[in-house]
């Protein structure tokens, strides 16, 4: 079964090829949808089979490499197309194909009637193909192929409705921004990869990590590698300072936001850090950088999320914030907790996006939450599932978000200190607040939409069933990671499962002093209470006393505008980086250096020669006799010269 791992990669590619090449001819949405979803569904089943096969093996033997063929070979640089099956990759594969499959099915309903239906499914399948490469790769270069591939699909899907407007620009602008910002990250990844090759003479995970474990390499090298790889991660996973593309990425269709910009692709950076955990564990300074960047991103994005009015924008900033959490986990050495959060986040964030999509669908493409309200009676399934997701992300037990978030908070406290815990807990509170602001404004209270023109309705089954599936996962997903204080030693299933992968990294990390169970339970209780309080407060403000929200925004107009305008980061980037580059390229490099200086010099040389020639050509009078006189004179001079020299 493990040998079949390549099928999980190949099937989506075949799906892409069929829908991409024959899509316009097939025309039948059902056929296209079934091909697209089927390819991912079968991949999921194969992954599941492999998962159980691995489960049946002893923990130490759960590692396989399936080599397909040699890709790039020059000198001793040898990069195969090879897939690695281990607990981490198979867990990610399950999440990607599982959530991916559900979202594919949902898309059949959501994209119904769109003229680009076939294109949409082709792109989605291509995305799954790239994502599977990223996850299963057994070397950095193949990972990079997936890395860039998902970026491409993200580009294609953000710009899917390429003729539409998006905010002040177009969807194409958002798509290009995503690709280019990702490329900046990729640049960092490339450099990191080169330093790895220079240091270890290999780019295969197995060989590199084996050498890391041997030691003997200075920490500064590890710092450099880890830093450059992390730059790559900040691009792909939307961390400060490269997060700006993700909110704009909401220009794409909602299933895309759910699949790519919430559940899978954006967690690629987290996965990469987890995969190279040994390197990070050898670079403690950079671990700290990762933790701080993650933490800052988390609270920064959460604060922006508080005041946004676009339903998808709120979810987008929430995603940035949650990704920050995951990096916080990576930075404090809680690799398992980070990956656990990747998984639960995939469930509830995909759920929230799909539910939001269902709302948008039912509200005739309206995305402004100020124009929603009281929708729970019109769309009961969407309402219930959205509520489930909101509770899960707020970290209320026993929903899945609680377990993973709490694990991260606990490790930040235990490994990094109280300050980290505090900021993390405040972020959790903010999260609960904006999620329930969103929920209250959308589903409860009075309808603020135009009742004559807008008739909210529940979505078809093909869309609600995926919501229900994800809602169930959001509820129960956390039970595989019950903290050991409740489940007893060795009771944390996901920790046991991932332990072989992170063992080398964990053994390198310094051990911290033990903390008591009491502390853990106390902190847990405090954070849950804070979240619950935030939920209550949000409902109170947005349902009963709307004046509080308004007076708050009037009282602090500067702060409100700063948050609403997202700290003006986009504008700052534009002013400080983008437009100077364009101006310098256009005005200085091209119109001055190229045209005036270099080409000017070339043409000047030519014209100098020409003007010199135009002077001396005057000697050619055209009168033949003048030439004859000159000739005779020449002969006479030559004659006398010869005579004189005799």
């Amino acid at each position, binding site marked *: 079964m493990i040998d079949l791992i390549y099928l999980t990669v190949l099937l989506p590619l075949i799906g892409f090829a069929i829908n991409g090449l024959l899509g316009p001819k097939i025309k039948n949405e059902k056929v296209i949808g079934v091909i697209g979803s089927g390819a991912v569904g079968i991949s999921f089943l194969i992954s599941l089979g492999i998962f159980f096969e691995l489960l049946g093996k002893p923990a130490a033997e759960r590692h396989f490499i399936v080599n397909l063929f040699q890709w790039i070979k020059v000198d001793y*640089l040898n990069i195969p197309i090879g897939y690695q099956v281990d607990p981490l990759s198979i867990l990610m594969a399950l999440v990607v194909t599982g959530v991916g499959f559900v979202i594919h099915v949902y898309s059949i309903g959501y994209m119904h009637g769109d003229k680009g239906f076939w294109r949409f499914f082709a792109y989605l399948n291509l995305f799954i193909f790239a994502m599977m490469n990223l996850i299963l790769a057994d070397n950095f270069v193949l990972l990079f192929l997936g890395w860039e591939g998902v970026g491409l699909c993200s580009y294609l899907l953000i710009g899917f409705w390429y003729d539409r407007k998006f905010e002040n620009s177009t969807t194409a602008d958002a798509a290009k921004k995503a690709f280019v910002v990702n490329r900046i990250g990729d640049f960092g990844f490339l450099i990191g990869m080169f330093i790895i090759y220079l240091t270890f003479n290999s780019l295969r995970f197995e060989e590199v990590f084996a050498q890391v474990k041997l030691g003997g390499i200075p920490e500064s090298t590890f710092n450099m590698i880890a830093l450059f790889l992390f730059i790559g991660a900040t691009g792909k996973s939307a961390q400060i300072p490269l997060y700006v593309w993700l909110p704009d990425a909401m220009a794409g269709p909602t299933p895309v936001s759910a699949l790519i910009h919430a559940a899978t692709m954006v967690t690629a950076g987290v996965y990469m850090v987890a995969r190279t955990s040994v390197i990070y564990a050898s670079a403690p300074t950079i671990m700290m950088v990762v933790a701080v960047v993650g933490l800052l991103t988390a609270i920064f994005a959460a604060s922006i999320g508080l005041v946004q009015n676009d339903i998808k924008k709120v979810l987008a900033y929430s995603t940035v914030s949650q990704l920050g959490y995951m990096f916080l986990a990576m930075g404090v050495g809680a690799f398992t907790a980070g990956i656990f959060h990747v998984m639960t986040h995939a469930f509830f964030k995909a759920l929230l996006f799909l539910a939001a999509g269902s709302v948008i669908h039912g509200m005739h493409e309206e995305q402004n939450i100020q124009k929603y309200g009281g929708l729970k009676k019109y769309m009961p399934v969407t309402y219930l599932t959205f509520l489930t997701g909101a509770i899960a992300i707020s970290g209320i037990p026993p929903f899945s978000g609680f377990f993973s978030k709490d694990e991260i908070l606990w490790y930040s406290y235990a490994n990094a200190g109280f300050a980290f815990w505090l900021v993390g807990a405040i972020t959790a509170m903010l999260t609960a607040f904006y999620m329930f602001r969103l929920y209250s404004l959308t589903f409860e209270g009075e309808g603020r939409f135009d009742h004559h023109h807008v008739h909210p309705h529940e979505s078809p089954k093909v869309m609600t069933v995926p919501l229900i599936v994800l809602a169930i996962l959001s509820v129960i997903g956390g039970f595989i990671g019950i903290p050991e204080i409740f489940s007893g030693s060795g009771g944390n299933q996901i920790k046991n499962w991932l332990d072989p992968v992170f063992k080398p990294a964990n053994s390198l990390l310094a051990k911290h002093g033990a903390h008591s169970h009491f502390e853990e339970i106390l902190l847990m209780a405090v954070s849950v209470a804070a979240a619950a309080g935030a939920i209550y407060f949000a409902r109170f403000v947005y349902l009963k006393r709307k004046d509080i929200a308004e007076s708050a925004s009037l009282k602090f107009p500067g702060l409100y505008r700063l948050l609403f305008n997202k700290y003006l980061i986009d504008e700052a980037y534009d002013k400080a980086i983008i437009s100077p580059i364009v101006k310098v390229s256009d005005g200085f490099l091209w119109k001055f250096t190229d045209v005036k200086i270099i080409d000017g010099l070339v043409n000047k040389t030519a014209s100098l020669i020409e003007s010199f020639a135009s002077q001396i050509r005057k000697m050619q009078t055209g009168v033949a006799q003048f030439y004859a006189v000159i000739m005779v004179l020449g002969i006479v001079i030559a004659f006398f010269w010869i005579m004189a020299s005799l």
Partner: protein
Amino acid sequence: METSTILNYLLFVPLAGALLLMVFPSANKNAIRYFGLFTSLVTFIISLLVYYSFDSGVYGFDKFQFEFKYSWISDLSISYYVGVDGLSLILVLLTTFLTPLTLLSTWNSIQIKVKEFTFFMLVLEMGMIGVFISLDLFLFYVFWEAMLIPMYFIIGIWGGERRIYASVKFFIYTMFGSLLMLVAIIWLAVYASSSTGYFTTNLLELYKVSPALGLDIQTYLFFAFALSFAIKVPLFPLHTWLPDAHVEAPTAGSVILAGVLLKMGTYGLVRFCLPLFPQASVEYAGWISLLAVIGVIYGALVAMVQKDMKKLVAYSSVSHLGFVVLGIFAFTPEGMQGAIIQMINHGLSTGALFLLVGFIYERTHTRQIADYGGIAAVVPVYSAVMLIVALSSIGLPGLNGFIGEFLILIGAFKSPVLSNWMYAIVAASGVIFAAVYLLWMYQRIFFGPVKKLELRGLTDMNGKELFIMVTLIIFIVWIGVYPTTFLQMTDKYSSALVNSILSVNGIIIR
């Protein structure tokens, strides 16, 4: 020495085709086109035959196969001497592959003086093949110069509005460099007579003689050669003929110019500059790489702000060829292999981009990006093909561009000659700008609402155009997914060349 006559056919089939074309009546355009296509296809088949009996396992940078030698000017021991190794062969294949596709693309676009055009294309093909397979510097020089003439006419007769300016500029620029090279060739040949006893331009003999020269002399000769090649590449700041020539040339001219002619510059650097003057090459590697890196960034930035599609692609060539030169002067097998594969990539991707620009130009008669907008909905196939080609040029993994750039950068990083990582790091940032300029162009042409009413009437690619593009895309994907086919052709050559140069300079690598 084993002799083989097959390479002669490679040269004389296009020439014979061109001469036979003379007897065709000018009015019968289709017959001329079919005959031209047929001739170039025969040439392609011959080059495939060479490929199939080629042995890529030969180690060495001075080991040639299918050699053929015939005394030409016996007093000066100048001979007609041809042969191929992996490097020549891969470029010959690129030439013979692109020529029929180019001829096919001119089916509709060239309507005046079809006979003359086809004639010049075939002569050009012969000239290009000749440059790649000559093993005698004199013969090489003859082909190098001869090939200018048909190109001059192709730009000058079938070009755009400022074609005369562009063609003269192209001609004089290139000529200027070549003359210094001629002086250096003669100097070398005279010098060789001091050790061999006779004047010779035989490359293999000069390979043995020349590296013994002192560094000062090598420097002069190196720069005399390198200037000529750098103009052809073109290396910053000698690139300004390129945008003009590209913009004014007809599509077919641009494709051949970008696809093959520019590669002659990099080919010359690898074939002549490096092995003939190993010390000077290593001594000045830093400076040349600096120019290459400047070219990478500068070309990309200037491409970004262009308003004319062809000019944009032309400046992107400056950027891509900068990568190639960086790879060459990294003196690592990775860099060398990357540079060679990148030559092919650039030929395919940029050739395809020029063809695509040409296709749309035939329909709308404008190349200004601002005149387009939102045509993705009107011409879906065209936009899909353009996207694939643009992505290959951007260097997306899985397509060809990535393989070349990746190997070049890795080579530059571990280069024993370029002591500083900054070369590679700055060059790597070129991948960001490549995405910016191509995607920005793509967005402005294809996305958004349809900008003008007349754009709604655009017709999508026809069968012939689609065939050309699919053929190119097959190779774009092939190199991206399974580059081994191409890498192994020059694998031994690259390591041999790099090792020999490094050992001459006393540099030891791990």
